[in-house]
């Protein structure tokens, strides 16, 4: 282990994907080192969600290679399961399990996938609930929480699996403005602790704070990638410029 940043945690090599005739991903190349934070942005329909969902096989790619935590994604269920254990994901719509309490949401996977004793799983769950600053909501049901609280529970639920990598797909897009900050604060803290992260988000303030690399996608391609200060100050591509001027206008 020389420089941690040189260890690739996620590697996409000319990944292509089609929906029928329509090509969603075109020759995507991407490397994310251990502890690196990548923020992906781009117009709606550009394939951002599809790309990060390929990383934990919620979508299947058709050509190219995807290697996550040293394991190649093939149709081998064993590899898929192994990768999913190492990769946490937070969705725009939270997707908490409504029939389980917050605590049960958090302990479900550690108990059934990591095979932890219940007590140990619950201790870890309470620890992470504290980390996302809702230690006293353990026995409520998701429907009883605010959107911001639900999203933080969702983050804690992923963290309970002690993943190496966290994927975020527009985690704050379904939230009211006053709740966005509480979620972003948790994500910033997570970033500062060295978690490897890939975030699809249009929260440019957040991107400036945490990103090691900005990736701009359009029409299924990665059009531009750069460190945040270059990306925001001097975007090279016309499409990036247009997109940034639009999004930074408000």
């Amino acid at each position: 282990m020389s420089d941690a940043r040189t260890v690739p945690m996620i590697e996409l090599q000319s990944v292509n994907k089609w929906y029928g005739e329509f090509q969603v991903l075109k020759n995507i190349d991407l490397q994310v080192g251990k502890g690196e934070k990548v923020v992906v942005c781009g117009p709606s329909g550009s394939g951002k969600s599809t790309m990060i969902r390929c990383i934990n096989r919620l979508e299947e790619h058709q050509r190219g290679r995807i290697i996550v935590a040293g394991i190649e994604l093939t149709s081998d269920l064993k590899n898929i399961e192994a990768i999913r254990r190492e990769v946490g994901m937070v969705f725009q719509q939270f997707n908490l399990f409504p029939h389980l309490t917050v605590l049960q949401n958090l302990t479900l996977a550690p108990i059934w996938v990591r095979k932890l004793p219940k007590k140990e799983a619950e201790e870890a769950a309470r620890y992470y609930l504290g980390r996302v600053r809702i230690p006293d909501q353990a026995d409520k049901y998701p429907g009883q929480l605010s959107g911001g609280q639900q999203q933080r529970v969702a983050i804690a639920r992923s963290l309970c699996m002690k993943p190496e990598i966290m994927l975020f797909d527009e985690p704050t897009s379904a939230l009211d403005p006053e709740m966005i900050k509480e979620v972003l604060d948790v994500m910033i803290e997570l970033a500062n602790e060295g978690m490897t992260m890939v975030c699809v988000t249009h929260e440019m303030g957040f991107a400036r704070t945490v990103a090691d690399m900005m990736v701009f996608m359009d029409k299924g391609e990665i059009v531009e990638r750069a460190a945040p200060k270059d990306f925001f100050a001097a975007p090279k591509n016309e499409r990036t410029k247009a997109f940034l001027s639009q999004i930074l206008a408000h």
Partner: protein
Amino acid sequence: MTTDEATLTSARARPALWRDAKIRGIAYQVVFVAAVAGFIALIVHNAIANIGRQNIATGFGFLHREAAFGIGESLIEYSPADTYARALLVGLTNTLHVAALGIVLATILGTLMGLARLSSNWLVAKLARVYVEIFRNIPLALQLFFWWGLLDKMAPGPRQAWQILPDVFVSNRGIIYPVPLSNPAYKWVVAALGIGVVAAIGLHRWAKRCQAATGRQFPTGWVALALIIGLPAAVFLGFGAPARLDVPVLKGFNFSGGDAVSPEFAALLIGLVVYTGTFICEIVRAGILAVNWGQSEAAMALGLRSSQRMRLVVLPQALRVIVPPLTSQYLGLTKASSLAVIIGFPDLVSVANTTMNQTGQAIEGITVIMAVYLSLSLAISLAMNVYNRAVALVER
């Protein structure tokens, strides 16, 4: 201060009488109950007047008189010398028999078909779809005639019986199948089965506690299966496997040995199961589809295997959508079993029909039928409500 506020709010909440939602609600109910009571009084008065004019006996005294008619099949002892009450009881047990078996089998068939319709296998999904479209859209009465015609009219006599499985024959005498010859060993086999079931339940409890404590998962399913099947099998073998079956054999013009169900019972059961199964299929399918795909994705992202996703995430949520309409299907099946009368299976309605014909006491007969179906329906509703409460969502 607080009393002031209270009077203030109550003063504000007191509109004119005819605009008060509460008082209106009560008024509507009073009017409705009065109307219903008046209607019933009218009918009762009418009926009493008619009965008086026609010199028909009233009351339930006839129940203790001799029925003097035979019943084709019965689960309990019965002869024409028994009372009408006994005859009606035979009808009731037949109804319960077919309804209970029907509910269990329709649930199994419907669930399998519902899962099949969701299968990614094209052929399986299409076949299930065809099944639903055919049997859901043909009136049940017609289907009953079809099955009955097939089993009673088209089926050959015993000599040319169709053999559908080894030693299982279909003829116009019904479906005839082998049964094990009684042997003292079977008592022990049954006992072993009981022990196996108890042991499996104990094992399940222990495994759950063990998982909570250490996280180790025990293959409960397989071991339980081994216990439940293996233990009786071991005892059976221990007795030297006395696998003597009472096999039906053709003797003269009929089969002897084995056991049989009548064409009427078989037709009614098949008809009810196949028909209700289509609705249960759609209910199960809709219930599973009602669970947001995001739930499965979240479970996948957490690394849960597909069987775990189904068991821990999807099914518990689907059940809440499935159980209430399932209750209506059970009620529907139970009530539809009264169509037995059209193919001559002696269910409660059929027996009550005969009773009414012989005694002329239609009102009492109908009362008995209604009371029985009402209690049956209420009992099913109650049981399902209890179950529903157990799976209901606490959510908000």
